[in-house]
């Protein structure tokens, strides 16, 4: 394995999530979904996971919260084995799913946010307070008595996120949470996720490189293997890595790459405009 592709930033401390030689195959498939994956995530890290469709990203998350059980290898999350003690893991690990509709279980927003708290047996007085805080954390004050089918996709996803935050999880697993949302919904959710940086450990699967360019590290999963574990800057600067894994840069970064202006330093199209002004100004002198 190319060493250059495994130099992502490392936080200190013991890993909160670790996989050691983990393999998994679905029953009706010949090919393994994950083949001997080893990785570590430390406390407070924000890790992006990208890769082509069918590469194993969603499978990986489901192994982490015990929805699936690894065929071989060790998975440890928040100190527990998700396959052996799923309930303990789920008290500490929240997962946000792709389809905003099917993550909401109760007829009212408030009740849905309380669902997780009910499951772990929190007392009623404490529940009220935690639901209130969670509602505030996602900016949905006033939505408590709304019914899910009256909400936009972005709002539904924020309700789901509130439900997870109410449990005060150490780790958040995000399975392409914005891919079914429109631009406004996406923005709303990403803003709230932004606020989580540093406070919790986050593993964010996405097929949109636009989304987590400020992650601490990015893992690239291809055909069930961990192909790369690098910083975002490194990822966007490596056309081979991108091409081999069918990853597409956002428009502004593609322009930057073609213009030789180093996409690694850019976040927005306006950043690129600035870079061009500088460079053409320098040329004029």
């Amino acid at each position, binding site marked *: 394995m190319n060493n250059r592709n495994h130099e992502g930033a490392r936080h200190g401390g013991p890993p909160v999530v670790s996989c050691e030689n983990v393999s998994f195959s679905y029953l009706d498939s010949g090919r393994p979904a994950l083949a001997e994956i080893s990785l570590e995530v430390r406390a407070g890290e924000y890790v992006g996971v990208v890769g*082509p469709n069918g590469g194993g990203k969603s499978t990986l998350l489901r192994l982490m919260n015990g929805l699936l059980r690894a065929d071989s290898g060790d998975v440890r999350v928040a100190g527990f084995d998700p396959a052996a003690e799923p309930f303990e893991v789920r008290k500490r690990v929240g997962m946000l799913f792709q389809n905003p509709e099917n993550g909401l279980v109760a007829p009212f927003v408030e009740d849905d946010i309380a669902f997780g708290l009910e499951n772990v047996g929190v007392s009623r007085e404490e529940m009220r307070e935690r639901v209130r805080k969670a509602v505030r954390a996602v900016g949905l004050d006033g939505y408590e008595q709304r019914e899910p089918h009256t909400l936009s996709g972005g709002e539904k996803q924020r309700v789901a996120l509130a439900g997870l935050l109410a449990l005060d999880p150490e780790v958040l697993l995000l399975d392409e949470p914005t*891919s079914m949302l429109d631009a406004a919904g996406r923005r709303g959710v990403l803003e709230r996720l932004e606020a989580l940086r540093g406070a919790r450990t986050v593993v964010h699967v996405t097929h949109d490189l636009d989304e987590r360019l400020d992650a601490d590290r990015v893992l690239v999963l291809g055909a069930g293997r961990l192909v790369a574990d690098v910083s975002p800057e490194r990822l966007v600067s490596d056309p081979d890595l991108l091409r081999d894994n069918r990853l597409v840069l956002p*428009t502004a970064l593609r322009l930057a790459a073609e*213009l030789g202006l180093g996409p690694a330093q850019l976040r927005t199209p*306006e950043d690129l*405009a600035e870079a061009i002004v500088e460079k*053409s100004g320098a040329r004029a002198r």
Partner: protein
Amino acid sequence: MRIELENVRHVYASGTPFEVEALRGVSLPVEPEEVLGIVGGTGSGKSTLVQHLNLLLVPTSGRVLVDGADARTIRGGELRGRVGLVFQFPEAALFAPTVEEDVAFAPRRLGLSEGEVHRRVGETLGLLGASHLAGRSPFALSGGEKRRVAIAGVLAMAPEVLVLDEPTAGLDPATREDLLGVVRALREEGTSVVMVSHDLDEVAEVADRVCVLENGEVRAVGAPEEVFYSHPTTAPSTVRVVRPLRGPHPEVGRPVRFEETLAALKGLLEGRV
């Protein structure tokens, strides 16, 4: 085929406490052989608007004209065959035991011969890159594959105008690119495409004209460079890069598509006057 919305208003649940005016007097032409991009936020009325193009929804007031004549004079079945509408997340409507049968549904409803139906199924599946899926069950496919089949199912009617409501929603970048290619190919062979999208970058790449909808009204309509460069809040990434440069360097022009933007920026950096 030219479709024109003439001062179309649409009110949902009229007379009840839940009354909502989704379209407030929209006038908009869809020209033959063009790709028209319709952009706007949630609640802008985009989906309501496109459902008027084949009269799946009828205006509360105003008219829909097809080649100058009131669309209501055309038989419903015929109109829906000439204006194909693909809803958002269309794969939710896949129902037949095999992909072939599902795509055959619409052309069969048109009363075509089995031979013609078969030909069309093959052709549209080929265009959408889904020929290898013909004998499979639609329910066993991946999201991107289902999307292709669903679009093929409407295309098999050989409509003169294809209306796509958020065709790339929820898809990975590779499939998105493929679908945009299909849009271009369709325009090449003379089919008009109306594409509703919240993704401005996509619209920028394929649209001949752009319409901005806001709150049930048309805010702007015209050539992409007209619309995008005049509206600060509605701009694809390419325009967002170029716009700050137009002050000091007006020679960069108003490119919208990726290739032309790249060329303009290269020219700028290489000091071409």
